[in-house]
């Protein structure tokens, strides 16, 4: 940085990002935000107002549509169903995949590589691929139209990615720690529960948040397996609501806003874990 002095005396490498680049960033930001903005305000507007006053504030802030939806029959129930399924998926998936990853990372046994490769096969193809035979399987096992069925299937499909993330993390734990515990006659079960898991809270959070979002947003599986309104998750609920109200956009936009808000709040809180899961899984995978 011993460059010839500049008139302002500031650092020489100032324009790393040019004004033009900033300008394009702001254009893109507007492109991202405008649909959200019009959606959020649209719930307060009358249908005619949408056309004549798309970007301005609504004529009145009467939250009647929002309260109708909140106290209506579907909204809370479908959110509750989604929450139950997502929490169930996260708990089961975390437990099952961390146990398997622990076995692969710390216990040496014949066939370990092969079995791990087998469980990672799920990374190859998306869950939608065999959805029809999966439907038959769930029918034969009596899992259709049950939240438990969705939880179990979602856990099965989350295993590959979760095991990969857990395994990458467990491998990095100091070997000496595990060895010392074994010397002291500590069994693998206790090592798993008292040493590995407490040390792995960050990765548990990452995997958990990741599976939570995946479950919360999932559509195809509930669409195919659930057929009782009372069991609907929120994406099914909102599609049904939209079908019911056709082009009563203010009402639909209000419902949309109410459905998106919890997700965005959650995202802002958990953003760190989501990004580390994405990049960690992507780069190491």
């Amino acid at each position, binding site marked *: 940085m011993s460059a010839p002095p500049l008139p302002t005396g500031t650092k020489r490498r100032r324009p790393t990002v040019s004004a033009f680049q900033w300008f394009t960033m702001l254009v893109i930001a507007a492109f991202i935000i405008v*649909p959200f903005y019009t959606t959020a305000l649209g719930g307060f507007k009358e249908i005619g107002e949408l056309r004549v006053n798309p970007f301005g504030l609504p004529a009145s802030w009467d939250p009647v549509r929002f309260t109708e939806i909140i106290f209506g029959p579907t909204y809370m129930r479908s959110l509750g169903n989604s929450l139950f399924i997502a929490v169930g998926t996260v708990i089961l998936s975390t437990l099952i995949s961390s146990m398997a990853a622990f076995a692969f990372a710390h216990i040496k046994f014949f066939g370990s590589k092969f079995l791990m490769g*087998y469980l990672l096969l*799920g990374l*190859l193809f998306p869950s*939608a691929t065999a959805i*029809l035979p999966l439907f038959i399987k769930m029918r034969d096992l009596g899992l259709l139209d049950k939240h438990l069925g969705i939880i179990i299937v979602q856990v099965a499909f989350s295993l590959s990615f979760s095991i990969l993330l857990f395994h990458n993390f467990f491998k990095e734990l100091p070997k000496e720690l595990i060895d010392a515990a074994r010397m002291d006659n500590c*069994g693998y079960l206790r090592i798993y529960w008292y040493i590995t898991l407490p040390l792995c809270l960050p990765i548990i959070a990452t995997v958990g948040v990741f599976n939570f979002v995946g479950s919360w947003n999932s559509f195809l599986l509930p669409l195919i397996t659930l057929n009782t309104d009372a069991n609907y998750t929120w994406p099914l609920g909102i599609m049904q609501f939209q079908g019911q109200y056709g082009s009563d956009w203010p009402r639909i936009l209000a419902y949309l806003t109410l459905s998106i808000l919890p997700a965005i709040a959650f995202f*802002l809180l958990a953003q760190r874990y989501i990004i580390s899961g994405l990049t960690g899984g*992507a780069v190491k995978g």
Partner: protein
Amino acid sequence: MASVASSIDTVSGSAVRPRRYMDRKSLVPLLLFLPPALLLFTVFVVLPMIDAGTFSFFDWTGYGPITDFVGFDNYEDVITHRNFGTAVRNSLIVVAVSLLIQLPLAMWAAIALSERGTHVNILRTIFFVPYMLAEIAAGLIWKFVYDGNYGLVPIIGDAIGQKLPFVLADKLWVIPAIMLVIIWKYFGFHMMIYIAGLQSIPSEVIEAARLDGVKKWKIVWHIKLPMIWSAIVVSVFFSITGALQLFDLIIPLTGGGPQNTSHTIVTFLYQFGILRMKLGFGGAVSVMLFIACVIVAIVYRRLLFRAEQT
């Protein structure tokens, strides 16, 4: 795994190797830790895939015994189906647009936003929010934006004094309209991958080039891009597999319409296989989709491997 054995040996201070790893102590935890994952994975992921292969050679409605062997008839039905070509073509368009427009845009944003700062963080978060959003919600938001009566498109039409079509009901416009939603939804994800790559480049490398007077875009082209090649390969992989399984976004936007012109492979599978419970037909689509995914994965591993070599 060899490193585990050797480190245990050094810790225990013995050079001999006859440790019994399959002792009783590790057998019980193994029997506890592995079966849940293996069972769930086999029953709900692997077996359905195998079933899809079986079903694809039979004519079966889902009830009773599977007896009606039809050879490759189901595959023929799929390939000669009026809308299968459209579905494949649309999926390929999604891949092409992702590679040619979305990824360069994501790279452009990543280069601008890879350095630290508050306003940078705010922009990054904004760009990433659509990715977190459920596809269903994103699809409905854009269904509103594109609505020809009350959405934003007619307002743009008023502004430029043109009567714009109902884009989602217009055979010509529907695919570009969907592509715009895809870029809106997913470009932030690719940007994040690139940012992670860019931040892992040692700053000395960039600093040295800068002090040598190398122009900014030459640094990007000759140093940054080659150094994050593996991040690029990863994002290309996600674009392609994402395009192959695109479903949730299409259903609220068009449901495959107008006149079945906006189907992707999975909406095609849903519309003509699942809704009609045609298991053989659906099985054939599944098998083809599976093969496509495996090919993509193999090419991806090759490319990534090469990237790590250089």
